[in-house]
């Protein structure tokens, strides 16, 4: 009986696989007009405390360069954003690097690379855009507050929480990058803060 279950489990793992076509295949099927792929996620937000707890570095930075590429399985577009740090929020610049907080001094670098799911690229002559319906792509020159974790394997940063760990300043006040998030309770504690107030709040919570 156990053997039967074992065989069934293996079969199940083999059979349950990602059956989506690759993006080059989709470009070929849907082109030559530009192809637009949107994604609506059944997302789970993270509290700010939870975001901070897994953050290697948080800073205000400016997007200076954008490069999109395909994932290894060619079913997703990822985009590398080169971000020029303007002001470090966490950890404080005077604090020393540690093994668990590897991205400690982005202000020392001209820019750091942040990878996000989604983007636009040309595949077989067809422009393909893949985008989260609630989280648009970053724009060149845009200033953002990012909570990032470092991926040693890729040697890149990525957002700790795509939905909860990206903010921007609107008329000097903090707003979440997530679309239609103005009334979400998870952002109540920081919504409308100035950058200075936000800096203090993040560092207070990180203690």
């Amino acid at each position, binding site marked *: 009986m156990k053997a039967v279950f074992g065989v069934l489990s293996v079969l199940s793992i083999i059979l*349950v696989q990602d059956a989506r076509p690759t993006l080059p295949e989709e470009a070929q099927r*849907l082109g030559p007009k530009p192809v637009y792929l949107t994604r609506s996620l059944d997302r789970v937000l993270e509290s700010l405390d939870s*975001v901070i707890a897994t953050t290697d570095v948080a800073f205000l930075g400016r997007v200076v360069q954008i490069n999109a590429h395909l994932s290894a399985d060619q079913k997703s577009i990822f985009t590398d954003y080169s971000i020029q740090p303007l002001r470090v929020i966490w950890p404080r610049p005077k604090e020393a690097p540690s093994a668990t907080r590897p991205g400690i001094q982005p202000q020392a670098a001209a820019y750091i690379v942040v990878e996000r799911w989604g983007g636009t690229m040309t595949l077989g002559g067809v422009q393909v855009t893949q985008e989260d319906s609630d989280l648009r792509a970053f724009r060149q020159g845009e200033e953002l507050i990012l909570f990032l974790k470092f991926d040693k394997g890729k040697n890149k940063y990525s957002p700790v929480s795509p*939905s909860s760990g990206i903010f921007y300043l609107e008329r000097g006040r903090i707003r979440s990058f997530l679309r239609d998030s103005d009334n979400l309770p*998870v952002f109540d504690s920081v919504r409308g803060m100035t950058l200075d107030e936000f800096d203090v709040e993040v560092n207070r919570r990180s203690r």
Partner: protein
Amino acid sequence: MRQQLSRWPFALVVACVAMQHLLGDTRLGNRDTVNTVALAFDPCPDIGSAGEIQSLDRAVITPDGNCSLASGGYIKKGTSYKYHYLATVTGSCTVMVQSCSGWPPSCTCVPSQTWVRNLGTTWLYDNGTTSFGTIAPTNAFTIQSLDTSVPTGTMSTGVSQTFPNTGRHTITFNTGWNPTSCAFTPDTISPPPFVVNVVACEPKWNMHPNPTTPVVMHVPPTTITLYIPPNMWGTLNGPASAAVSDLNNNWLPGTGVNIRIDNVDCGTGPNCIKAGEVPVSDLPGSCASLDHQNPDSITGEYTQYTTLNLGDAYWPAATAYRLQRTIEHELEHALGLGHNNCSLLDSLMSVPTSGPTGDFPTLFAACTQSTGYSNTASDTDGLPTKSNYGDHVRSVCGF
């Protein structure tokens, strides 16, 4: 006014009335009928200009007075709203009488009195039956236009209403005008009903990501097939059937959309939604996703098939209750809804929070557990589909 009628044909009228009675026609009191049946009784038809209600407008204003709702829009339950009414009526009617002279008499029709069409009382009905208020000009017989949102001392200031429960309400307005000696027809007018959807929290829509094309993305109004591959059928069929049943029975009748489940691939057309499994690394911070391709930028309709992706680390561990919520949540995306800021119990389209102070301790718990949220569509989820399927009315007040 009728006393001004010339008496010359009186004898002839009396004779004809007697003949009418003998023939069994008792309609003499109905002036219109007389005009059409026996013009000889009233040879001077009244002259009416083409008068009609020219404009009607209704608005729902929140207590703070700064929100105007379009018909089919959404308001928050338990809040008092005021209906305003803008109406203009035009037209007049001149009563004509005979003027005779000489012998034998020579008669002509001459104007006797002119009446303007004017606004009477407007009755408001909820769902066609329950009258809940009136709007009446206080200076009757002379008012040809009114706007209750601009009080002038000569008219009502609107009608207030509070909806304690969620649901769809059809408000009808029935405006009459004051009687005159002319036979204005029709004597009342009912503008198109005003639909109000009362919900617990603010619905959001799944908008086309291109900001220059603000249309709601949705599957076309036809039979949609949800394809569940054979290797996921055993686990997903039950929760998916419950989700589809809730939508088909409660929210999709009348929309043109009906969802069926199949274990045979439904192809690449826009009426196909394919369930499948993807690595969780492809769904950062999420349990599942709905991916669509090339939605029409004018209509918002999908032009290709859609994929319903379940995270490989979550769905096999999820309860049937959680899977039903996940599937119905994604199907609601396909029907045009986006994420909202409602509580987890008020809406399927709400967004849970994980973490020490969140709704769930971890992302895994949020994607697999049964408790803490609803797994069927509420009015906030269903009314936007049922009331305005397609590129939905998105007017909201009071949130």
